[in-house]
C-alpha cells in the first residue's frame, strides 16, 4: 500500500528565483562577516568599534531569523510575540553591564 502512495508523489521542480534568494542571503551573511573582520583589524578597540560590531551582528541576526527561519513571512502576531519578549534581554544587558562597572569601581 505504501509503495502505491510513493509512486503517486508529485515532485515539483525547483523555483530558480527562490534558490537564488537563498544564496543571496548566504552571500550577505558572508559579506557582513568579512566586513566585521576588516573592522577588527583596521580599527582601534573602543565604543565606536563595539557599536559597529553590535550593529552588524543585528543585521546578520535579521537575515538569519527573517529569511532562513522564515519569520519575516509569518503572521504579524507571531513576529511580535517572538520579538517583544526580547526587550527583557536588552534591559538585562544594560542592567548587568552597569552593575559590572559598579563592581569594578568597588574593587579597584
Amino acid at each position, binding site marked *: 500500500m505504501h509503495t502505491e502512495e510513493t509512486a503517486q*508523489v508529485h515532485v515539483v521542480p*525547483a523555483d530558480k528565483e*527562490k534558490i537564488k534568494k537563498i544564496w543571496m542571503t*548566504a552571500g550577505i551573511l558572508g559579506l557582513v*562577516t568579512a566586513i566585521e573582520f576588516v573592522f577588527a583589524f583596521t580599527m582601534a*578597540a573602543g565604543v565606536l568599534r563595539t557599536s559597529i560590531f553590535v550593529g552588524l551582528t543585528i543585521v546578520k541576526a535579521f537575515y*538569519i531569523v527573517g529569511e532562513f527561519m522564515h519569520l519575516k513571512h509569518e503572521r504579524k502576531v*507571531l513576529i511580535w510575540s*517572538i520579538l517583544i519578549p526580547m526587550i527583557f534581554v536588552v534591559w538585562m544587558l544594560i542592567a548587568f553591564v552597569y*552593575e559590572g562597572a559598579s563592581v569594578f569601581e568597588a574593587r579597584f
Partner: protein
Amino acid sequence: MSATATTIDTGKSVWDGGQPPLKASYGKLMMWFFLLSDAFTFSALLITYGMIRFAHPAYSGTVEGFTFSQEYWPIPEKVFEAVPFLHGISLPLVFVGIMTFILIMSSVTMVLAVEAGHRMDKKSVEKWMLWTIIGGLTFLGCQAWEWSHFITGTGGGGASLSWNEYGPPDFAALFFFITGFHGTHVFSGVLLNFLIYYNTITGVYERRGHYEMVEKVGLYWHFVDLVWVFVFTFFYLV
C-alpha cells in the same frame, strides 16, 4: 453526540480550533517558543560575560605590545590566533572565522533541504540534509580542536575552570561555559538532523505527505547558527 477531539470542523472560527491560529502548526509554534526560552538562556550567559568583563580592568596598551597577565582581561585576537597545521604562525581569529563560515554554510544547506521538502523532492532533501550533518560535524571537530588548544595552552600552563594563562580565571571559565553550551546545542542539532535524514531515506515523510519535521528541526538548526553569530561577536570580536 458529544463533541470529540477527533472530529475537526474546518468551518469553525479560528479560535474554535478550525485552523492553526497563526497559520503555523502546533509543532512549529512550540519550536518558536522553545527557541525564545533558549535565547534567554544564551542571553544570560553572554550578558554574564559582559558583566564580569566590565568588573575587571581592561588592557590599555597597544595590540602589538600585549602580553598575557592576570591583571587585566585579555584581548581575544591575541588568545585565539592559532590555526591547525599552521603551528607557530599568528593568524588572529582566522580559525574562528572558518568555523563561522562552516556554520553559516550548513544553515544554507538546511534552508535548501526545507525548500526541497516543500516540493516533495525526497532525493534533494536527502542530499541537503547530509551536507547539513557534515557541516555540523565539521564544526564540532573544529571546536574540539579549539578546546584542546585552549586547554593545553601555548607553554604558559594552559587553562582550567579555576586558572588560565591568558588572564583572570573567569575568562577561561566563561569560555568553557559559553562555547560549551553552544557546542552541546550543535551536538544535539546534529543528532536531530541525523534523525530527520534517516526518516527521509526510509520514506517516513513521503508517506506522511509532508516534510514539516524538516522545517521544525531546521528552525532549531538556524537558531544554533544565530547564537554562534552572537558568540562570535561578543566573545571573539569585542
